[in-house]
């Protein structure tokens, strides 16, 4: 049965430019609404309304009982005098930028190597690198917490067994090492997926570009820099924006591994807002209003990541 037979007699397919909601027949419009309404209702109830309510709460003081008290922008101005908020802000930005840099450049390099140099190992390496990506960050967080354990952890014991006992560290309880240690885990989890995106992108690059470059005497590096990288601009824009968004809203990995410790050294907005609103550090008065203000900031930062993606994609498609 051809697809055209599914069209109602008398209704001609419309060109995209000429399509208009109001030109459709009423029954078709209703059918469209029928398909869209369920997801819209779900979206409004479980995404839209919570966002609106969180924005409202961010202008209030509320402990989860009684009525919220509207306090204007006090929660936002309070952030400037809160030393933990400053640490969380700095850590969030650094984490987002570092994960974006590492989780874009390293997967790109691996994808290029797998496409050109390590072709024989491509399937094995891709599979091995992709496995961490299918494990949830909660599971990998617990796993790496055990690996990093200063007392019984695999890493310190491995270092000791190969004669590098002096290199043993308190990976997650040393304020100077905790963020780099978490970054390694984030990279471990993300490199496979990002590598796969780049790998797929590279397969789509027209091979004649490389042939032409070779004829012109371009080196491998020049081919990478002047052919591969420009051809992957759209893909790169998507990877960058995904990494930025995941970096700004990071919570699960850090919460499981350190809960923001030691002494807030790995605190990010996600973990701080959680501890203010729900955690045991919230104490006798949960601060749902102040916590919501942080969630609004995270939302705005994610908005910035989306804007970055839009700008980069537009430039790439020019």
């Amino acid at each position, binding site marked *: 049965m051809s697809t055209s037979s599914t069209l109602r007699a008398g209704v001609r397919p419309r060109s995209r430019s000429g399509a208009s909601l109001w030109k459709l027949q009423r029954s078709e419009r209703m059918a469209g609404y029928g398909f869209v309404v369920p997801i819209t209702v779900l979206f409004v*109830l479980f995404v839209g309304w919570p966002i609106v309510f969180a924005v409202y709460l961010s202008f209030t003081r509320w402990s989860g009982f009684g009525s919220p008290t509207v306090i204007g922008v006090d929660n936002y101005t309070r952030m400037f005098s809160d030393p933990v908020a400053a640490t969380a802000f700095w850590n969030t930005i650094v984490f987002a930028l570092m994960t974006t840099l590492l989780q874009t450049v390293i997967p790109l390099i691996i994808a290029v190597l797998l496409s050109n140099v390590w072709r024989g190992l491509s399937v094995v390496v891709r599979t091995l690198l992709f496995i961490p990506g299918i494990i949830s960050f909660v599971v990998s967080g617990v796993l790496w917490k055990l690996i990093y354990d200063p*007392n019984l952890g695999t890493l310190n014991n491995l270092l000791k067994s190969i004669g590098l006992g002096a290199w043993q560290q308190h990976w997650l309880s040393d304020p100077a090492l905790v963020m780099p240690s978490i970054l390694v885990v984030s990279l471990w989890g993300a490199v496979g997926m990002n590598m796969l995106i780049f790998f797929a992108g590279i397969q789509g690059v027209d091979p004649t570009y490389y042939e032409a470059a070779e004829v012109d005497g371009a080196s491998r590096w020049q081919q990478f820099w002047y052919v591969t990288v420009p051809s992957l601009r759209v893909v790169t824009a998507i990877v960058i924006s995904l990494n930025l968004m995941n970096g700004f809203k990071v919570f699960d990995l850090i919460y499981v591994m350190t*809960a923001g410790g030691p002494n807030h050294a790995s605190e990010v907005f996600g973990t701080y807002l959680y501890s203010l609103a729900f955690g045991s550090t919230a104490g006798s008065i949960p601060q749902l209003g102040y916590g919501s203000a942080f969630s609004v900031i995270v939302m705005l930062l994610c908005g910035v990541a989306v804007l970055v993606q839009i700008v980069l994609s537009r430039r790439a498609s020019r």
Partner: protein
Amino acid sequence: MPSNRGTSFFADAAKTSITRRGLLKASGAGAAAIGLSSLLAACSSGGASSSGGKATVRMWSWYTEVKDTLPKVISDFEAKHPNIKIENRIFGTPDQYLPALTAAVSGGDVPEIFAPHVRAITYGEQGISADLKKELGSGFLKGFFDSTNQEYTKDGKQYALGFEAQTFGLFYDPDVLSAAGVDGEPETWDDLIDAAAKINATGKSAVSISCNPGTSALDFFLPLITQVTDDPTWYLKLDQLEKGYSYTSKPVVKALELNDKIVKAKVFQPGTTGTSGDQSQQLFYTGGAAMFFAGSWTPAGLIQNASPEFVKRYKIMKTPAIKSGARHWTADQAGAGLAVSETSKNKDAALTFLKYLYSEDVYSKLMNASSAMPSTQAAVERITDAHVKQMAGWLPDGCPHIPFGAGSSAAGDPLQKIFDQTASPAEVAKQMQSAVENAKG
């Protein structure tokens, strides 16, 4: 004849014409059902229910010590009270439990019986938890230790019952102390500092402790205020920020200086502010540390986690005193308590269960089977676990250490700077005052 069952479904479906009107009706009904069910879920004011004519009592806590033993008590109770059903839910840690409790309170659907954490008085004043003095009577409450009753009492009303009492002490491995040349139990902090130097020389940490989250650090620090003042009511007044009491007061600064001195002497393992409760316990029973500062819930944890040889071997000593001959003030109270929802329609059923739970025979058997420290005098007399019995004997030297006051928990954050040596005691005192005032709102 070969079966065509596999293909007939598709064939039948193809024959059935789907009319647009039918589709619209179905999708409209679907949307309405989803929306309505969501609205109903959102607007539901109470989960207290009756199933099959039974009153349901939900009981929420993070008290894992009784996870294997409480179900037996519940089934015995249900057999005697066929019209009441108990739904027991034990979360792993306070950090896993509190989000659920906060959400339940915000949604107006509080479990009939719940662990109030440090929010007992706040919830009581807001009308969320019931006044148990009124509901159960003073006679019932008389059997509990004063300290566990006081912590849940304000303005003559009591909003929770102590479930597990607690005192703190230093758990130690006598073999490790002997190997390091430490004879006997250190009596004072100075003695402990001397012992720590000997233990550190063997490549082990002297005392393992958890300061992550920061509130755990308060368990160690707040009793030092009582040691400095020799007045177990001093912290209670500070907790409520009564006039003349602040974190910049001399006793707090002196206590911070003592805490600072202990940390500087490398009494604790490196990275205390990044060490969680389970990690600090593990450091002790795996031989990484000679001693372990923790509360009376630890014997139950060690039975579950450590080797049987270690459980037989370890001992407990009192928290060191500020000077020789002084009282060994140590943190007490009941961190584990039980509150009752004021608004639940099954409140009476919840109270009936509590009366059963705290009946002398049932409660002491439960505490003994769980190696937990009871909150009632009668049950303490029937303790069978030697370690728990020893720690229960320290209750007369108990002092308050739980930050019930509005914003008091926030003092734990700046305190961590003493443990990681990033601020002086005077600076930390100022930051504690500021943090508590900010959190108080």
